[in-house]
């Protein structure tokens, strides 16, 4: 181990250096604090044995200079003091000195003091190595998760889109990198639009694996095949039934909730199936907001689940606002949930403003409710609007 020996007395310095060499260390000699500091900057020394009284820069200044440099490793400083200098110990400790040796010193004392310092330096080196390895692992995981989050976002039809007289807008906020939520919409035939939103139970990576698998499974072809009956009529309950068969596992507690609908673009009629997903809100231009649906079995939770369709008509200027449970369940600092009431009032207040702004407005209101704390659950806001009659 490299050890810097700073002493203006060449004989004393030599004596210490030889003792260090006998202990298997590599002594670097300095005639004053300034030289010692220069050596410290150029070498990997972690231990400094310094005389207190030296010309140019004394031991106390040297200590202060070393501590002020905020090096990425710790330097263990042993101060050599003459007899009767014990009053200086307090100042030296304040400056950052770790240990003291009194002159005249003998080889055995020197050996145990240097041995103790070497143990501390070695311990610090091992800790730094562990920290470095942990930091590297953390960075690798974080960059993986960020890549996964980007990949997941690319699957989603984010932003604002129009299909004829109908417009979609969405916000998607994972609680941690990736989300157990997923949504999508597609033109099924020239006069039909299919849409869905899901929320996998729990959150985090496990939920996200399921939500992404769902997103890849439920393509527009899959949706068209299963959400339209043999007679050509919309039947999203059938889709729910097929998905329940696919996602149900006897030995697994995870499941997902879904809201799926098929819209007839000519009439504005929506045939929908609510599979445990929170009730969407139907918002009218007169600022009335009514919940939609009457509940239903989630997907993959109960083998014998039954599913049914309900209908609503989306009139010109009306909106269907679909929010995952991350919205109503968002809690403030006192644990009070945002709740359906506040969510409905917010949607009512925003009816006069453009649809494309609503998802971000909901997200911003929830962020404010959380008082800056990140959301504890994934959030999806999907809005479907029928354009007002010109």
């Amino acid at each position, binding site marked *: 181990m490299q050890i810097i020996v700073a002493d203006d007395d060449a004989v004393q310095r030599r004596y210490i250096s030889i003792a260090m060499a006998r202990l298997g260390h590599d002594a670097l000699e300095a005639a004053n604090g300034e030289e010692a500091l220069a050596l410290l900057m150029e070498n990997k020394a972690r231990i400094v044995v310094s005389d207190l009284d030296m010309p140019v820069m004394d031991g106390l200044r040297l200590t202060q200079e070393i501590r002020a440099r905020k090096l990425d490793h710790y330097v263990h400083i042993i101060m050599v003091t003459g007899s009767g200098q014990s009053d200086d110990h307090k100042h030296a400790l304040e400056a950052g000195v770790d240990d003291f040796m009194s002159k005249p010193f003998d080889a055995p004392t020197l050996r145990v003091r240097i041995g103790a310092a070497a143990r501390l330096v070695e311990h610090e080196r091992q800790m730094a190595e562990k920290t470095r390895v942990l930091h590297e692992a953390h960075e690798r995981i974080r960059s993986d998760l960020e890549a996964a989050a980007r990949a997941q976002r690319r699957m989603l039809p984010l932003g604002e889109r129009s299909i004829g007289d109908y417009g979609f807008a969405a916000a998607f906020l994972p609680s941690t990198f990736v989300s157990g939520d997923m949504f999508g919409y597609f033109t099924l035939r020239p006069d039909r639009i299919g849409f869905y939103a899901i*929320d996998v*139970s*729990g*959150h985090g990576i496990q939920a996200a694996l399921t939500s992404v698998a769902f997103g890849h499974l439920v393509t527009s072809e899959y949706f068209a095949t299963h959400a339209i009956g043999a007679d050509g009529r919309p039947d999203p309950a059938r889709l729910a039934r097929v998905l329940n068969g696919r996602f149900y596992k*006897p030995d697994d*507690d*995870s*499941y997902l*909730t879904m809201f799926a609908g098929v819209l007839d673009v000519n009439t504005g009629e929506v045939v929908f199936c609510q599979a*445990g997903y*929170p*009730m969407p809100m139907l918002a009218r231009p007169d600022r009335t907001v009514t919940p939609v649906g009457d*509940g*239903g*079995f*989630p997907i993959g*939770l*109960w083998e014998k*689940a039954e599913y049914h369709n309900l209908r609503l008509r989306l009139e010109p200027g009306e909106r269907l606002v679909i929010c995952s*449970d991350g919205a109503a*369940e968002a809690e403030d600092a006192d644990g009070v949930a945002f709740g359906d009431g506040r969510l409905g009032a917010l949607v009512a207040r925003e009816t006069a403003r453009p649809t494309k702004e609503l998802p971000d407005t909901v997200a911003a209101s929830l962020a404010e409710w959380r008082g800056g704390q990140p959301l504890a*659950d994934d959030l999806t806001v999907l809005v479907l609007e029928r354009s007002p009659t010109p």
Partner: protein
Amino acid sequence: MITTETHGQAICLVDPNMPRLTAATATAFKDEVSGLIDKGYDRLVIDLAGVGFVDSSGLGALVGLLKKVGNRGEIVLCQPADSVMQMFRITRMDRVFKFLPDRAQALDALKEG
């Protein structure tokens, strides 16, 4: 940690002892109750009266227990707060679980059954 009160060889009353059954607590809760079922207590009363919030993971854990007791056993839930009951209604699990107002009635139902 749940607290339990056994009644005979197969019936056990379970108090989850937690104000919230969520992603943070659901796995531990399910593991503890699963242990009881493994010991032969497959007729369970789970008192949800003190549980103020159940999230999707909490519901998953309860249904997981119901799947575990299967046809051999039975689970009766003591009526939770209305906000929690709403979770069961919206997912239709109010039709799958049996709910009774209090422990005494729930235990009686199991002893008769």
